[in-house]
């Protein structure tokens, strides 16, 4: 129940990410990463896997603290143009429903369906935010949210080897994009 609760929290935050001001997006993303880290740590405690604990620490340190802090600086002072409209929320709800249908009882095998469904929905909502978000912070946070969903999916799969490597791979892209924005001015149109 614990990891499922944390997964549900990550999913709720994904919806909140779709309709918030730019300035609060980094904080929401940090909260989502913390929920994912909690799910990984809970699974680590249940299964006794060192990889899960390591993944939890990585997600908390990078996606939960380092990237949101850097993004907070980037987002400060930007206009609030990227607020999502009602149709995107409806589309987001449709994607979450699709994720729930994808993990019907006949489909999954030996996994927590609730957690896997929440993870799939989080990835899809992150993808939606990246695609419809206007401006660098919103798109980057969408990618980060999708990466959080990926780690959440990994924690719900018993015995998945190299989970810390999966977490690192999921973080590498948002981190590289952030470094590109900071040092090379990626995403600038002028």
């Amino acid at each position: 129940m614990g990891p499922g609760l944390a997964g549900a929290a990550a999913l709720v935050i994904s919806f909140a990410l779709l309709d918030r001001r730019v300035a609060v997006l980094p904080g929401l993303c940090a909260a989502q990463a913390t929920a994912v880290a909690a799910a990984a740590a809970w699974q680590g405690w249940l299964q006794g896997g060192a990889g899960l604990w390591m993944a939890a620490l990585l997600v908390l340190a990078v996606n939960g603290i380092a990237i949101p802090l850097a993004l907070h600086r980037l987002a400060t002072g930007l206009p609030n143009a990227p607020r999502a409209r009602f149709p995107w929320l409806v589309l987001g709800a449709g994607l979450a429903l699709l994720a729930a249908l994808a993990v019907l009882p006949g489909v999954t095998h030996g996994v927590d369906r609730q957690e896997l469904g929440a993870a799939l929905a989080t990835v899809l909502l992150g993808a939606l935010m990246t695609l419809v978000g206007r401006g660098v912070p919103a798109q980057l946070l969408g990618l980060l949210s999708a990466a959080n969903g990926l780690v959440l999916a990994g924690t719900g799969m018993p015995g998945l080897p190299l989970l810390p490597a999966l977490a690192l791979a999921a973080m590498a892209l948002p981190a590289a994009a952030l470094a590109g924005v900071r040092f090379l001015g990626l995403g600038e149109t002028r």
Partner: protein
Amino acid sequence: MSVALSPVLGPLLAAVGLMLLGSRRAADAIGIGGAAAALLAACLLAAAPPPPDGWLRADPLALLLVLLTGCIGLTTVVASLASPSEAQDRSGRSRLSRALPHTLLGCLMLALLSDNAGLTCVALEAATIAGALAVALSDAASARQAAWTMLMACGLGLVFALLGTALLYLAAQPALGPGLAALRWSTLLPAAARCNGALLSLAFVFLLVGYGTVAALVPLHGWVAEARTRAPMPVAVLSGGLAIVGVSVILRVRGLLAANAQAIAPGPPIMALGLASLLLAACALWRRPDPRRCLVLAAIGQGGVAAFAFGLGGPAILAGLLHLIVQALAGTAAWQCLGGERRGLIAGMLALAGLPPFGLIASEFMILGQTLRQAPPLAFPLGALLLSLAWALLRQLPALSAGSREAPVAITLPAAMQLALTVVLGLAMPGAVFAWLAAAAAGATSP
């Protein structure tokens, strides 16, 4: 350390050397040396393939594509050193920008040789980051925007691919149990029939969207035109390797689903993406885009034809592999001659249009023949789109060849060799090469 790692190490060590060395002459020598070492290592691997070691494997499909990528890598590095415009660009670039094409090449080699589905994805991720960084290092703001789009689109695609890989692992649990075996391509295919079909289908959806984005299949192609047109020539050519890896992984996943009776049929969605790519290229080329965009559109269209063949299955897979190889060689030759060598560029465009004696005509006829046999209603649209693409490409020739000048032999010779290879592959393919192609097609799709 596995021998199969040798084609990966050459370019990556060269990249390290290029980062450390400031001397232009030494950097040129290291660049050529690294790419030549990769090609040589690929040839040696092909001569005596080692057994899979759990992380890397040199099966016929991987070897074929590693050899192709090695060939493209070496000719591109040589041509970029000889190209006057590239030499001018290079003088102003940092050590990092000289090292990035080699990093991209090494990562592509690793993705092709990887036996672990997760490692394939991670290697592609590193290749994407290197490619986007190389695009961004150009001074233009449009290049930085293109690099951002590439990073976001491919990044999202790779998150989908990683999720699909994790779901693939889950699907393989009933057959292979926990552990790395459930992530190895070499063990997954023989066990595919015993995998969870529903989860395999779910994994396929994510893998198709993920690798389809990297392979720039329509409608997942949004990043490719801007990124490749804004990139320096070596990166523009080598980033075409992302499509080769993406399509080859889709072919492997197709084999897994085809072997499982409960999974969805993988062919129709792949064929749909392939036909959509061909349709977009054929339509967009009629608007007479600039030369670089024209080559990118041709690559999208011809890559779509290869994907369509992979979706069709059966003997069409062999034709699709031939098409993938020949269009990559012809496209590379055309890119290398762009802005320099008039005859090479015209020949490359004729080859991409599928005109004889170049090899695309052979693969196109094979694919059309198989479509008539396996899916007759699709044969007419496929044939019409191929003709339309060819005609649209031929319409570009007068504009493309205008203003060109004679180029050094270091550009003309590699381009001529690649075009000659496309002729040989189309008209007089040696029996051993045909057997290799057949083994690659069979190995990727049947246990």
